[in-house]
């Protein structure tokens, strides 16, 4: 045996275990590779089936589970009718009570008015148009009415002038709060040149019309529909046009500095009364 063969034999004896170990690892890697590839292939095949089944499941819920859910709910409601009524009654009751009392109040106020001075006008209107007298009265009860108008400085929220049918809480505070709400909403949504235009408050709507230095808030009761909205907008634009026109005249045509100021609150309020107090919308 030559020297070289001896070394080879020695190598064989020494590295037998290592070689076997390496071969085992290679086999394992091969198995893992195979499994991964197979899983990917399997997933590719199975995924569309699962998705399809899921879609079908979702679309079929109303037909498959719907009746069961409805039946269960019905049964539960029948079993616990008192409990459910107890829970809902205060909420629904308050809503209905408030709504009905408000409606009756409005109706009785209108009818009282109609029965006095306007009665003959209504009768005449009914005879002339052929519409029943009750229908005319009812249609008038739901019409929109201007309750309050505020001319407010933008930003500061300081009240420049106001007109109100009835006494309310301090108008300066209302102007401030409206401005804060308006500012908050406009700020929160972060849209430039967008303004809060309407606030709904149960039976009232607050229409907000913004201009550059001021905005006008009109509080409306009754049915505030598109037609009424359109009329209110026209009234506001007319008023504002006059108001700004007079201001510009005062500022530019006046020779002395003292009178180069905005028109005073008193004149503005007269203007508001003139424009809004008898306006029908």
């Amino acid at each position, binding site marked *: 045996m030559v020297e070289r063969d001896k070394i080879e034999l020695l190598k064989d004896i020494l590295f037998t275990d290592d070689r076997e170990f390496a071969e085992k690892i290679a086999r394992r890697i091969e198995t893992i590779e195979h499994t991964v590839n197979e899983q990917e292939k399997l997933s590719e095949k199975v995924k569309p089936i699962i998705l399809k089944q899921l879609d079908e499941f979702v679309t079929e819920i109303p037909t498959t589970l719907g009746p069961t859910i409805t039946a269960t709910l019905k049964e539960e409601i029948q079993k616990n009718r008192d409990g459910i009524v107890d829970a809902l009654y205060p909420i629904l009751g308050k809503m209905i009570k408030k709504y009905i009392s408000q409606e009756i109040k409005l109706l009785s106020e209108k009818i009282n008015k109609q029965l006095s001075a306007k009665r003959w006008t209504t009768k005449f209107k009914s005879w002339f148009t052929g519409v029943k007298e009750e229908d005319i009265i009812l249609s008038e009860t739901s019409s929109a009415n201007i309750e309050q108008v505020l001319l407010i400085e933008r*930003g*500061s*929220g*300081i009240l420049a002038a106001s007109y109100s049918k009835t006494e309310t809480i301090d108008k300066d505070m209302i102007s*401030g709060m409206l401005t804060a709400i308006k*500012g*908050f909403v406009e*700020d929160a949504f972060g849209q430039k040149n967008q303004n809060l235009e309407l606030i709904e408050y149960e039976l009232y709507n607050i229409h907000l019309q913004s201009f550059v230095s001021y905005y006008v808030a009109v509080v409306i009761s009754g049915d505030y529909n598109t037609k009424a909205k359109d009329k209110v907008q026209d009234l506001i634009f007319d008023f504002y046009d006059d108001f700004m026109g007079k201001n510009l005249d005062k500022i530019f045509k006046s020779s002395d500095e003292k009178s180069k100021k905005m028109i005073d609150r008193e004149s503005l309020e007269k203007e508001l009364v003139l424009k809004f107090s008898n306006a029908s919308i």
Partner: protein
Amino acid sequence: MQVSKKIVVLGHFGVGKTSLIRRFVEDSFSDNYKVSIGVHITKKVVEISVGHEISLILWDLEGTDDLKTIRDAYLLGTHGVVFVFDVTRPSTFQGLNTDLEIVKSKMPSLPLLVVGNKADLVVKKDLEEVLSKNAIATDFLTSAKTGDAVNDMFLKLAKLLD
């Protein structure tokens, strides 16, 4: 003709902004602390000289530790500012000069009063020492609880706005 001026009252949480306004407007005080949310607006007419009145519209803004977060919409058109801190809580005045810089950057060139509130709870001498140590200059030390210096403070601001 009565002129209206918008005043904003600012400061950290719980320094007594609402209590100061309540004391000034309603002349009342309550120990029951309620956090102000958003903004609350009140009004008081003050006579700054015989026959000359000014209507102060007071915007009580919710307290905040970071004055940068105050909504700019609430500060628009402001005529005067009251910055309130709590003399019993160093955290409300330790960064006062930085806070004032922020206020001034948001509302430049406006009359501004710095007010240390709850002065009834500390010894005046000790308080002055603490404030001087922190390099804090105040315009008024008030107490919404006792009413001390509250009217004077708002009256001074009204005069500054006239």
